[in-house]
């Protein structure tokens, strides 16, 4: 990393200032009960109310159960989607007959929103845990699948030709050429997929009995505890951001040769 890449003190402060400005703006419009006609902040809880609610949740013994359930659901759905999406994406990207066989049903399934899967997933899975994991799985599957296909299509055919000339056999081509060459694209897919997993969490946990951050958010809405809704929303946002950052780190560690937007 060169000196110019290292952010100065001022530049490092900027993200913090930006977040503070958002909170300040929120406080301003909520405390003044601003009514703009089309949009109104009359019933929006203020930052301090939300802070109180967050503090209450933090003290509550339920928090670890909420977090634990949500994390295990998101993680299970994500891992399943990653395995299925990457495997399917490699096959669809590489073989025309697989593409022609599998793409039509997948294209039909792709635009269906997670919320529309709720009734069917309740019917299909005997346990509600299974249906919740299925919904996060559906959310993450398509970004991972499509980015993997895109990555496979982008592999330079000369790399494959060279690998074959150097004695690589069929499975070796997949393992040693196509997978690493498509890896940056797969990582993009995984990162978007991780986002959509959290995105679908509230939807999934609508069918939950008692625990989960999404359940907590949805339940707060049904009992009209508005401050708690925002606590739930912010928790989902933070967890999603954290998991994306982890994924980014993992990608950098696994692909030291790959530096987006620049040469290694």
């Amino acid at each position, binding site marked *: 990393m060169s000196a110019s890449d290292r952010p100065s003190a001022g530049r490092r402060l900027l993200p913090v200032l930006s977040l503070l400005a958002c909170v300040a703006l929120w406080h301003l419009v909520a405390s003044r009960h601003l009514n703009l006609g089309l949009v109104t902040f009359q019933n929006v809880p203020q930052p301090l109310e939300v802070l109180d609610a967050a503090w209450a949740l933090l003290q509550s013994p339920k928090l670890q159960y909420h977090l634990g359930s949500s994390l295990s659901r998101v993680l299970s759905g994500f891992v399943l989607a990653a395995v299925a999406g990457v495997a399917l994406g490699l096959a669809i990207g590489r073989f025309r007959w697989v593409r022609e066989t599998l793409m039509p049903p997948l294209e039909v399934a792709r635009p269906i929103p997670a919320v529309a899967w709720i009734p069917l997933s309740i019917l299909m899975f005997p346990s509600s845990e299974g249906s919740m994991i299925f919904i996060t799985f559906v959310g993450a599957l398509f970004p991972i699948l499509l980015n993997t296909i895109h990555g496979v299509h982008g592999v330079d055919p*000369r790399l494959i*030709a060279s*690998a074959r000339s150097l004695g*690589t*056999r069929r499975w070796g081509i997949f393992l040693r050429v196509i997978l690493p060459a498509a890896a940056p694209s797969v990582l993009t897919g995984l990162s978007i997929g991780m986002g959509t997993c959290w995105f679908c969490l509230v939807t999934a946990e609508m069918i939950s009995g008692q625990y989960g951050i999404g359940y907590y958010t949805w339940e707060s809405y049904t009992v009209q505890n508005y401050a708690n809704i925002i606590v739930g929303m912010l928790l989902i946002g933070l967890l999603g951001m954290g998991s994306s950052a982890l994924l980014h780190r993992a990608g950098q560690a696994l692909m030291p*040769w790959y530096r987006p937007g620049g040469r290694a």
Partner: protein
Amino acid sequence: MNAVLKLSDLSPAQPATGSLEIERVSVELGSGAARFTALDDVSVSIRPGEFVCLLGPSGCGKSTLLGGLAGHLAPSSGCLLLDGQPIAGPGPERGLVFQHHTLFPWLTVLDNVAYGLRMRGVPRAERRAQALTWLAEVGLQGFENSYPNALSGGMQQRVEIARVLINQPRVLLMDEPFGALDALTRLKMQELLLALWAKRRMTVVFVTHDIDEALFMADRILVMSARPGRVVEEIRVPAERPRTAEWLTGPSFIEHKRHCLSLLRDSAPAMPLARLSPLSEPSGDAADATAYSD
């Protein structure tokens, strides 16, 4: 091959293997209305250890012929033989070098060079030792832990050559390997290749459209014409080896160059053609139908 060798043929490093027979080979590329004959009834026979340049204008099918020898393109008719065995698909005994390197960006220079040995199941320590030897041979000591993208174009081609030669190929196939390099780097690479070839004496088939390059490198030049791709003339380069600057500036060189130039001028198509690749036609989908499957 020759059942009886003359004594004069037996130079100390004369290899026993690496003969190529190209027998009445035609290759058609493209599909439907865009289908054309890239190579038309080409017959060439190449001795073990010979350095042959294919010289011709863009689109004349010289890269197509190379692709056929590499096993990435199947001829529409005719056959290609290496030491009497038909060529049926790519293999490490025929090393292929493209104009732009095809090093794996996710492997270090060392792992790229050792790749072929890995495919053959050579143990790790042995792979490493051999790869380091080869890196030294191409003048890249100290770069073993770099990634290919951190190297210059000339260095990348050095790694590419080491990666191919570590497999001890009987034939080295090169598709304008120095075409993208600046003049000085190109000259250094030509000298490096000739030095490696003098030491190991594998057969080399070298595609170029640069007359000087062909006259500097080759034992024999096959001049090709475009659409249909044919060999229009065969030129034996009379210069002694190792070749020097004297040859490059002498009257015989100029005479040969003038001759090549007039041949190329006659054989060049009215409109410049797109460059063909050793893999398939100039653009569009890879021709799955004509390529060998593995």
